[in-house]
């Protein structure tokens, strides 16, 4: 669901942040539509938290303009931006009860007492934690604390909720549960959410749109599907999902169609999204699940020796060591009665040419 016609909740125009002599964020343009769930994904130091803090007003931009809900917020103090924020460490007030914590933003808004009681009660029911209203945050588990901190945001209906790695401190199982809960709240309440994470699975699971960041720039943005199947750079391909990459030189085949000459052979490749010059360096991406192990060799394939086969539950991963020393990963569905090729056996890892994706070679360095 890419909402392009809906009015914008957040609009960044050429926003950048420079610390002393480090560019934390190069000038960035980004629009987030009302009701959208956008994830800022990237490794640490990629600028995703800086971008979030700029929108929250915790740091001032070095250049550019920030518009929130149609209002120029570039120099607006945090407490007047009308947002909600969920922190990784929950940031619940340790000296207040759960009820007082959730009531706090309503007291700030001078909501009458009776209504505060009603709304806090309602939001506690929504997250199914009505029974802990009188406890203090530290008496609760990490998952419960994070739900309370979500409730504290939801209770005052901010137009935009920012989340800074909110599930980073939770264990895997709880994290997956919370991902679904946040998605459910997003669907039910229709609040615009901007979510920061370095976890690609989390981004793929939750987002309407992923903004992938790298080195203080937006590397690529699009739906989870787009980022997974149509990465535009080697960085995108490697950051999301696992990938096999064959480096080579782009040439014209006998019939004029593009082929990539690599150390392991010459392979037909689909036309790239953005034209790449003939004779230029390029890379071919094939996702492990689009490769199969095969005996014969009439499809496109590379050959190598089985180095290892790993069972991951529903799928099996084969690691194939090729002649040039690189390793190709082949992922197949697990079946009862499966017979793996023995370690050291020669195999062919093949793929359909249309499942490959041609990417420009990454800039040197």
């Amino acid at each position, binding site marked *: 669901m890419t909402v392009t016609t809906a009015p914008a909740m957040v609009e960044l125009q050429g926003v950048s942040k420079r610390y002393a002599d480090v560019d934390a964020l190069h000038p960035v343009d980004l629009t987030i539509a009302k009701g959208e769930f956008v994830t800022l994904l990237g490794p640490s130091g990629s600028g995703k938290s800086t971008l979030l803090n700029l929108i929250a007003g915790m740091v001032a931009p070095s250049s550019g303009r920030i518009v929130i809900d149609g209002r120029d917020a570039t120099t607006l103090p945090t407490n007047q931006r009308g947002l909600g924020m969920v922190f990784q*460490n929950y940031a619940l007030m340790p000296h207040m009860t759960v009820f007082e914590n959730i009531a706090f933003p309503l007291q700030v808004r001078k909501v009458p007492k009776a209504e505060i009681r009603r709304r806090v009660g309602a939001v506690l029911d929504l997250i199914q934690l009505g029974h802990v209203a009188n406890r203090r945050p530290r008496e609760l588990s990490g998952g419960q604390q994070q739900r309370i901190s979500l409730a504290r945001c939801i209770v005052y209906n901010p137009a935009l909720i920012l989340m800074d790695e909110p599930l980073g401190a939770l264990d895997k199982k709880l994290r997956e549960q919370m991902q679904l809960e946040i998605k459910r709240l997003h669907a039910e309440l229709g609040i615009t959410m901007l979510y920061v994470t370095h976890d690609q699975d989390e981004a793929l699971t939750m987002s309407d749109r992923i903004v992938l960041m790298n080195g203080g720039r937006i590397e690529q943005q699009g739906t989870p599907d787009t980022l997974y199947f149509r990465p535009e750079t080697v960085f995108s391909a490697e950051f999301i999902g696992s990938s096999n990459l064959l480096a080579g030189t782009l040439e014209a085949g006998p019939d004029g169609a593009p082929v990539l000459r690599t150390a392991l052979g010459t392979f037909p490749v689909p036309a790239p999204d953005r034209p790449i010059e003939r004779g230029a360096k390029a890379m071919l991406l094939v996702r492990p699940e689009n490769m199969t192990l095969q005996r014969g060799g009439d499809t496109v394939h590379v050959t190598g020796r089985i180095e290892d086969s790993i069972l991951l539950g529903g799928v099996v991963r084969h690691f194939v060591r090729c002649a040039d020393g690189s390793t190709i990963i082949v992922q197949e569905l697990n079946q009862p009665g499966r017979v793996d090729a023995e370690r050291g056996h020669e195999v062919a890892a093949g793929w359909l040419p249309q499942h490959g994706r041609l990417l420009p070679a990454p800039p040197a360095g």
Partner: protein
Amino acid sequence: MASSTSASDLGPGTALLLLAPLTVLMAAILLYPLGVTVWTSVNNGGFTLSAYADLAQSTLFLKVLRNTFEIAIGGTLMSLVIGYPVAMHLAAQPPTRRTAYLIMVMLPFWTSILVKSFALVAVFGNQGLVNQLLGFLSGGAIKLPMMFNRVGVILGMLNFLLPFMILSILGSLLSLDRRLILAAETMGAGPLRIFWRITLPLSMPGMIAGILINVTLSIGMYITPALLGGRQDMMVANLVDFYTRQTLDWTAASATAVVLLVLSGLLVALLGRVRGAAGLSEAGA
């Protein structure tokens, strides 16, 4: 936490051995004289509580006791009100600058209380800098008596008490999680509300520790009221001195000292309870 676990790993024998030197020293220089004092206060040619009965009826003693609590509590409260903003300012500084400012806060520590008291006279006395300036500006019309009276005692006291208050509060403020303030800001809270609802309650343990130290230090204060106070500003410690050196009434002196000890002990215990309660609601962080 780590150090307390490792300390409890020691066997009881080792612990006793480590504590022995201090225990012996404290017994010799604190417990023994204290015992003698208590003994003297009830022994005037035989067991008697007459010294205490006399104190209870002595207007001088009651007046001095009132002075003592007024000055100790008043000085402590002023130190709290003056020290808190200083601590807040220090907490907001970058670490290197904070260290530089802290040295200024600590300077009074490194100066003898006698020297400080005389320096205060030079500044606030009738011929002091402040009054000379006031006199110059007003053409001699204004002269504020700030020494050898209650104002002088409080000024001298504050000079001595403030570093303890500031350091205690600063400790609490520095351990306050900044993200709580950020969270409150995103929720729309202004600086005043953030101060009353978050900063102040979460710095309560530091405030109470500061109050506790200040009250304990000021209640037994001797030199400051002696040097900077007037005849009306005698405190209990000065009264003890008066009995021992002027009237040579050792029984009365001892009884006075014991009453001071018991009252300050009660006060400390009371404040300790408040601290315990505040500690319970304090951040787990």
